[in-house]
């Protein structure tokens, strides 16, 4: 435990990412240096198109950087093959999306069980873990409801349960409250706070909602692919 907390959650040096549009290179991230401590709750803010999602996707191992170094929990991601990266994501990262991204043909319990299929757990253990995760987000009474039978806030809570059911060290959330009303957004943010404080999950949340950003313990501003730390460490 002691040793783990000394390894930062994220360490990047001169991280660059550019996309290709035709044969034109479009730079998005221009050499970013950043360290995020394990157990942090970070809000990544900035204007639309500034590269927030791009940065988050790199950290979560969904995309590969164009240059620079990136380590997540001490693991250099660029050395992993596609298969190894997929396994790494499954065991280290929980995903929360703006539009929840639940599978519409699976009910709440089945959706939460889904990531556990990639683990060695037995059918019964999977069920127990999924039930525990759903009870944690207060949806024990909605197990057999399908996404279309749940409100946006409830769907996002199912998604949070799905994100934590494998007990990952890192949670990444891209605009988790972007599609929710005020009250539901509050619930979701409170849940993230709880996961951070009580369970020590490292959380990186992209948001352009100021109120959501205020709930994080650290804010990082991104503007045109450049970093600007703000109102940090309060």
């Amino acid at each position, binding site marked *: 435990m002691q040793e783990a907390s000394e390894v930062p959650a994220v360490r990047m040096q001169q991280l660059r990412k550019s996309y290709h549009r035709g044969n034109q290179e479009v730079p998005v991230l221009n050499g970013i240096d950043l360290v995020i401590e394990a157990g942090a709750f970070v809000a990544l803010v900035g204007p639309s198109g500034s590269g927030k999602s791009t940065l988050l996707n790199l950290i979560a191992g969904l995309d590969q950087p164009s240059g620079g170094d990136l380590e997540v929990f001490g693991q250099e991601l660029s050395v992993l093959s596609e298969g190894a990266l*997929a396994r790494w*994501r499954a065991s280290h990262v929980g*995903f929360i999306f703006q*539009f929840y*991204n639940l599978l519409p043909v699976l009910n709440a319990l089945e959706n939460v069980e*889904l990531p556990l*299929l990639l683990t060695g757990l037995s059918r019964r253990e999977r069920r127990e873990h999924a039930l525990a995760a759903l009870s944690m987000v207060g949806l024990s009474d909605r197990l057999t409801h399908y996404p279309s039978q749940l409100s946006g806030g409830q769907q996002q809570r199912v998604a949070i349960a799905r994100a934590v059911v494998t007990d990952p060290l890192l949670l990444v959330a891209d605009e988790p409250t972007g599609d929710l009303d005020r009250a539901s957004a509050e619930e979701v943010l409170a849940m993230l706070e709880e996961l951070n404080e009580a369970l020590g999950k490292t959380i990186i949340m992209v948001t352009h909602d100021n109120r959501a950003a205020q709930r994080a313990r650290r804010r990082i501003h991104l503007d045109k692919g450049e970093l600007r730390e703000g109102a940090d460490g309060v």
Partner: protein
Amino acid sequence: MYLPRLILRNALRHRLRTGLTVLGLAIAVLAFGLLRTVVDAWYAGADAASATHLVTRNAISLVFPLPLTHRERIRRVAGVRKVSYSNWFGGVYITERNFFPRFAVDAGTYLDLYPDYLLPAAERKAFLLDRRGAVVGRKLAQTYGWRLGQSIPLRGTIYPGSWEFVLRGIYDGRQPNTDEGIFLFHWDYLNETLRRNAPRRADQVGVFVLDLMHAEDAARVSGEIDALFKSSLAETLTETEKAFQLGFVSMIDTIVLAVQVVSLMVVVIVLFVMANTMGMAAGERLPEYATLKALGFRPGFLALLVLGESVLIALLGGLAGTALTLPAAAAFSAQTGTLFHGFAVSHTTMVLQLLIALGVGVLAGLPPCLRAARISIIAGLASLN
């Protein structure tokens, strides 16, 4: 477990779309099976042909007869065991729709040549004794509800006039593919009538049917017979009964070819329908595939998810179509009466039907399957916004 359940639920997501696709497949597979069975039935006659039988006909064309006097010379060719002969009578029974083959045959010898026509001894005797007697297959008798002793009128076409026959025998086929749809009567009766009414057409034979002592002699005997009548007024063409039947069938070979082309086209069309269904389904679900990949699922899992759905839908349609082929073939056979004999859906046809369905499922599922497996997570997730 999980993957099959996911596949099944995905297939049921758009019930109308899936239902229509299954229906389309079922109809295509049914059409393929029926058309193939029709083609099989055309060739069934040739398959039933005996290896020791030769048929001698007029070299110019089947529509020209041969003189009866050829018989003696044919019989003297070494290796020939027995000679019989027959004329295609044509004619109409009540209406044109009631088609079945009618032959005037040299009764005694003809029945000896076709031991697969099982005729009770008493009926055989009654037939041979009655100049106007007729013998028919069991299936034919059942189709028209004929009973022994009843008279059967035919209106002549090739041989004009009103003809009246008395049913003296009903034969059963010894083999499953023995033709039970044939009407036989005495060549002598035909010939006597012609002598009276159209003497110039008398003593003419449609074809000679001969039985060999050894099947291996077929080529030599055919050659010798045709050489015998070379440069005569009625040159002959002798071939095995099977070749003769196939030649008869080949008159409609073009139709058979058309039938095969049509059944192929039906399959190709349903392949496009299926590919469209799967393409639409996969297109709608790209964000889901990207999400699954983000969660750590491998391309192989997504490939199985898509291909499994395609194969499931195709096999459902294939099974339904194959199952419907049996009753449809029975109904078709009943409608066409005795036009076809041996109208049965073969095991090969049913296996082919299921293989075609499987092939359509795999082929149609392949492009969306590759698309799902190769999708970039970033692009797939972005398509949701």
